[in-house]
């Protein structure tokens, strides 16, 4: 054996990532009769992020019932296997040898897999402390929610005694729950926004039942401590600073798609989501390569990711029958304070996105904003959102206007005021 020997194989569809999105698309495709559907995951177990979200609240939109994350993961694994998809864990897609040909590493060796369609379902992660440029020392006790959940729920490791949580969005409240389970006290939640960004009931429960104070309008100015974290210094909007003593800090939210494989294929990314630019049919700019789940919209709930997988099955099937690859020609761009929109390419006479709507994010609270869609100075749509748009939460724009866009015109722009 030479150092670089690889076995070569061919499959019909290769799905990279066995989270809710990847498992759902694989299950649909296998059930529709596609012969060789193979799903790879680099983790030792399939299921994606829900594996370690040991609390309830999964499955409402796709399965119409509510279960815990691990149960939800098991459900999707079983469904994919039952449908006839091949699931391989502990196998990492490391790069591309050619378009639609992926190099992988696993304990059985190196392989090169060529597929008629490749579906990227590699998910998203939280930006760590360093990427947020939080100054100070580099002590132990600094987490993201993903690391915290795995430490507590999967590996039963000790974490600290007293924690500060940075963020007050959905996942931040999951971090509170995990810390409480680990027996740690939560000293405070901190957000740079004027209010929390979760469901009021969830927030109230955390605040009243567990007495967790919420500090708004504040950012983390510095971490201190040599070996172990000793305090988190906050800077309030008015410039005042104050330190909170703690041995643990959890940086929550602030998502970035795990786009390594997409980017290394040279697939164009959307400047807002930082995931691959895709159209209503989950097509990227690279023929035969689709993308689904949180890789496209960092971050949505697991059931939304799974629904992506379901919706993507039909376009993948069309591609397998030889329909030419013509991804949506028009980029859809947002302007500040909007952060991103998904999908972000469109075909005026093509299908609407799932549920007939686009998903967006804003960087600050917008009270019943008016959303305007325009192309080359021409207004395609104008409408008031019936509710407040909150940062770190999805809101939607109906897609009825897409037929009015000019396929040969400039980018479509979305503004909010």
């Amino acid at each position: 054996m030479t150092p670089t020997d690889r076995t070569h194989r061919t499959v019909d569809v290769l799905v990279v990532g066995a989270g809710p999105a990847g498992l759902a698309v694989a299950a649909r495709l296998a059930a529709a009769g596609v012969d060789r559907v193979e799903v790879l995951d680099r983790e030792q177990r399939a299921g994606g992020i829900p594996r370690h979200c040991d609390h309830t609240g999964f499955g409402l939109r796709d399965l119409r019932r509510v279960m815990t994350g691990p149960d939800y993961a098991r459900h999707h694994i079983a469904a994919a296997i039952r449908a006839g998809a091949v699931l391989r864990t502990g196998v990492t897609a490391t790069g591309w040898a050619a378009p639609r040909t992926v190099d992988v590493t696993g304990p059985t060796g190196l392989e090169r897999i060529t597929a008629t369609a490749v579906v990227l379902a590699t998910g998203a992660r939280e930006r760590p402390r360093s990427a947020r440029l939080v100054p100070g020392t580099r002590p132990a006790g600094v987490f993201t929610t993903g690391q915290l959940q795995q430490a507590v729920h999967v590996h039963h490791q000790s974490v600290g005694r007293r924690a500060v949580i940075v963020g007050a969005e959905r996942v931040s409240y999951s971090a509170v729950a995990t810390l409480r389970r680990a027996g740690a006290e939560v000293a405070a939640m901190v957000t740079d926004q004027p209010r929390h960004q979760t469901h009021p009931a969830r927030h109230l429960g955390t605040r009243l039942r567990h007495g967790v104070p919420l500090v708004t309008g504040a950012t983390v100015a510095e971490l201190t401590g040599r070996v172990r974290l000793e305090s988190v210094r906050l800077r309030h909007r008015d410039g005042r600073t104050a330190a909170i003593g703690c041995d643990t800090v959890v940086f929550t939210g602030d998502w970035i798609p795990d786009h390594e494989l997409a980017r290394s294929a040279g697939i164009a990314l959307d400047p807002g989501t930082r995931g691959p630019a895709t159209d209503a049919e989950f097509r990227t700019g690279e023929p035969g390569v689709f993308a689904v789940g949180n890789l496209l919209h960092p971050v949505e709930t697991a059931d939304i990711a799974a629904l992506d997988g379901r919706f993507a099955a039909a376009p993948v099937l069309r591609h397998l029958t030889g329909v030419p690859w013509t991804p949506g020609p028009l980029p859809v761009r947002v302007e500040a304070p909007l952060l991103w929109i998904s999908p972000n390419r469109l075909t005026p006479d093509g299908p609407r996105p799932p549920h007939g709507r686009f998903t967006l994010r804003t960087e600050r609270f917008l009270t019943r904003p008016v959303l305007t869609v325009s192309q080359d100075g021409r207004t395609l749509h104008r409408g008031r959102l019936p509710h407040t748009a909150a940062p770190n939460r999805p809101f939607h724009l109906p897609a009825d206007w897409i037929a009015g866009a000019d396929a040969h015109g400039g980018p479509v722009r979305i503004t909010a005021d």
Partner: protein
Amino acid sequence: MTVTTTGDLPDEVYDVAIIGAGVVGTAIARELARYRLRIALVEASDDVGNGTSKANTAILHTGFDATPGTLEARLVREGYQRLTAYAAETGIPLEPLGALLVAWDGEQLAALPSLAEKAVRNGYHETAVLGTEAVYAREPHLGPGALGALEVPGESVICPWTTTLAYATQAVRAGVALHLNCPAGAITTGVDHHEIATPRGVLRTRHLVNAAGLYSDEINRRLGHEEFTVTPRRGQLIVFDKFARGLVDHILLPVPTALGKGVLVAPTVYGNVLLGPTAEDLDDKTATGSSAGGLASLREKGARILPELLEEEVTAVYAGLRAATEHGDFQIRADPGRRYVAVGGIRSTGLTASMAIAAHVAQLLVDCGLDPGPEREIESVRMPTIGEAFPRPYQRADLIAADPAYGTVVCHCERVTRGEIRDALTATVPPASLDGLRRRTRALAGRCQGFFCGAAVRAQFEAATAAQDRTEARR
């Protein structure tokens, strides 16, 4: 092989004791291990290379811009040759990328010929002055406004962690006793040996080498010397994501000005891009934190040099402290009367100069009366590949076929396998912390900083250390 981390020090009189297991102290230990001597290397922290040596810009300098005639100029030039050869022999990641000193204004442009001439005086003849077009041909992503550059083809990037670890590993295998968690305290110098107080008992040695980095002045004073005072000069750095690597292919050095060496942009051997360092004189030898002001100024400078760099994600931020003194040169001094050599003021080139410093110190010890006896062959070492210039284990079918643990990726961002982590945990000089494991394998050093693998890496680390504790308890 002796590495101790707890318990009483062995009751023996060493021929030579070296205080400080940074890149300099370990290089000295390795150099002396080539003779039949009883040698102790004592280190205050729980790992080798835990001081300045873990937090630098990781460049192997040719010495082209040193002050001609200084000891530093000679040792950097020699050290460059020695370490280049040693890296090839041991597998220390090293990439000879070459440097460009980019001139952004007329004054800097005018300075290039004299820098080329200074290089010649330092024995370096390969520089070339490039015009604007040639600069952009080599570095198309450079920001607008570059007027020219001095090209220094020999400047290289290297792995500082593997370097220190290779020295320490080879020294320990050749018989050096490495005592970690062993800060040297009061020193009593007698007629034929020194007694050094440590929390783990008294260390006795005939000859003493002080390679204590930032604390070398304090040790020096304990021997009655006042020649230099160390003032920590902090350097903060930002490590950018591997996706930034395509933006730059040389070490981009600023043209030196009166204000010092300035901020550079350089690839790392791990495939990232570094931006830094700052230069801030402080009085706290433990101030290795980063500051908002420091990071902001780096980003401002980086935006000028390589604008697209700032669009990429940041992987890590760190700071190191240079051991600057009031003198313009290394402070390497022998006191034959006390059988003592001080190795202080090893400021911003100590990684490069390390092997040459070691050879120089060995000679000074002879001048102090040490009889090393005949030189002997010592076993060479081969270090794990953590650089990107050669195939890593996850890319090697032959390794995985022999042991599937090399096909099981644990740290996904850096593609570190279970087999590599296992090997590091059972190596000659094993890590005492997750941070030490990170420096040996790159596990936890990638863009997610542990989001995916933090808990799994910790589990493997804790399982291995618990197993070692059980074995030690049984002994």
